[in-house]
């Protein structure tokens, strides 16, 4: 549809006969936060590189804000901020200077650059490093400056390629905080990831790809709704014994059962809320004193795994 900020049509990319992106079509709607999911080598980075003028396409087209990025890259990228792979910085420049450089290329005024530089460096918590040369920064610090430059000119579209990759748990947490912050503002965000919990947490929409092909796309809720297989985690007063597990496994609907602790077990359940509630009753009727009974946060994972299994 015209007016959608990112429209990818039948995009194809061959590397010497190897098809990394295969007839991919995808539309990202205005104001959405799309998680672009897929296993290693699925073609996520390749797709993003074509969107950001780092690679040429072998076929198909991609447009940003209605402008074809292959034909008019300069104009198409005018309102776009991007972090692709893990970029490197000019080691002799400071974050302030780097942002000034990129801001001037993007046509920002001196005042806008200094005002926005303060804001974005504050957002990524790099203010105290603003005048230090980037050469000695750690990977995580560089990643934050990379995110800052993507937001600098208040673009309408932000494209991120695995923004938390290579970061330590705290770095990941902080980047996720930044992402949630971005989500509140009205950017359209296209983010590749293979971290399902990250996507489930921050994204409004999901597109799943494998081997360069689109498997599924929709809102996170829709997909979770469709994900008929759930992973359920149960904690009981009783200790798990072989005998007990054996009788649980005989309950109708229990699949892939395994003990996950002294008095915990997990299993997969096919069905919706109705079936889930029913299951709890059946477990209790075995005489189990259930302390907690919850859907583990891995619903997207089971959908992902089943789709990827099917596409092999």
């Amino acid at each position, binding site marked *: 549809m015209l007016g959608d900020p990112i429209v990818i049509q039948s995009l194809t990319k061959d590397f010497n006969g190897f098809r990394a992106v295969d007839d991919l079509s995808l539309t990202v709607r205005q104001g959405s936060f799309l998680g672009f999911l897929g296993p290693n080598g699925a073609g996520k980075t390749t797709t993003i590189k074509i969107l950001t003028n780092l690679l040429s396409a072998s076929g198909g087209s991609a447009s940003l804000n*209605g402008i074809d990025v292959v034909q008019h890259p300069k104009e198409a990228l005018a309102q776009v901020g991007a972090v692709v792979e*893990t970029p490197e910085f000019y080691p002799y420049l400071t974050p302030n200077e780097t942002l000034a*450089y990129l801001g001037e290329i993007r046509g920002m005024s001196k005042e806008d650059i200094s005002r926005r530089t303060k804001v974005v460096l504050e957002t990524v918590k790099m203010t105290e490093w603003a005048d230090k040369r980037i050469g000695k920064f750690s990977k995580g610090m560089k990643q934050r400056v990379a995110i800052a430059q993507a937001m600098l000119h208040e673009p309408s579209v932000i494209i991120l390629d695995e923004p938390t990759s290579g970061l330590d748990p705290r770095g990941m947490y902080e980047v996720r905080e930044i992402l949630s912050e971005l989500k509140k503002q009205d950017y359209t965000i296209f983010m590749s990831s293979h971290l399902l919990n990250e996507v489930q947490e921050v994204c409004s929409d999901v597109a799943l790809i494998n081997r360069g092909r689109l498997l599924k796309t929709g809102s996170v809720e829709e997909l979770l709704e469709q994900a008929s297989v759930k992973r359920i985690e149960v904690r009981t007063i009783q200790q798990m014994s072989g005998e007990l597990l054996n009788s649980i496994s005989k309950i109708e609907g229990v699949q892939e059962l395994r003990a996950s602790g002294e008095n915990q077990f997990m299993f997969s359940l096919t069905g919706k809320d109705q079936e889930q509630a029913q299951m709890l009753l059946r477990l209790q009727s075995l005489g189990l004193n259930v302390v907690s009974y919850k859907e583990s946060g891995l619903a997207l994972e089971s959908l992902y795994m089943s789709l990827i299994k099917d596409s092999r």
Partner: protein
Amino acid sequence: MSETNVNAASRAARELPSDLQQVGVVAKYDIMKYLRSRRLLGMLIIEAIVLIAITALLATSNNPKTADGVVGQYAGFATILIVIGATLFGGDAIVSEYQGRTGYLLFPNPIKKVSIIVGKFISSVAAMVLILAIYYAIALVAGLVMGNGFSTLGLASLGLAILYGISALAVAFLISSFMKGTAGSLILTFALFFFVLDIISSIMGSLGGIKPWFLVNFAGTSLSYVTTDPYPVDTIQSLDIGAGQSMTFYYFYPDVGLSIAVMAVYAVVALVLAYLIFRRREMSA
């Protein structure tokens, strides 16, 4: 292409700086990078050593000197500075964006590859001109002091040196546009101008009797000969080596007008080729 696409493109373009303005931005920050890195400083130190050595030699010799003769002594070493300058300021200009991964930061911006390469080229030419201007300023002053006169031919030599510098930088850009690694690109640029081209032109000239007027290094030597008056002319010498055999030696000197044309052609062709390769080169590593 649809009508709306064109309209949207021109609307977005209106808010962006022009290609030319972006050339200026790239050049400005590239010069800043030279100032911050030790490259410009290193180049200035090498230059100072060369200047001190030549000046000391000239000052301690008692031969009568002319201004042109003095500047000519300096000019003889200008090509070395140009070779080092082309290596330091152009030898990795493009490949470093790929190998150093800074291209991931720069290329997704609304800027054409042509603006990037022209901006970078302007900054490296500026660095080269700075180095040569300092060098010749001191050479001309030495001519005034030791040769008791202003060397007009020295100015001509400066002009040729700048042109040779520009063509060597363009060739360096071309090398850096296709080489995979920064180190290889720097080494190839340096080797090419330091001896490879010289070996080729000597083989052709002295042994084959072919005047290598079309080689950029040969054209570049005009910057040194131009300070001699009269300008040397090509000579062929036959030497009897006994037993009815003789050997022929060829001494070729570049024609100044032709050399200017050759250097200009190298500069333009190399830079255009560098651009075409750069535009197609993919950010894949």
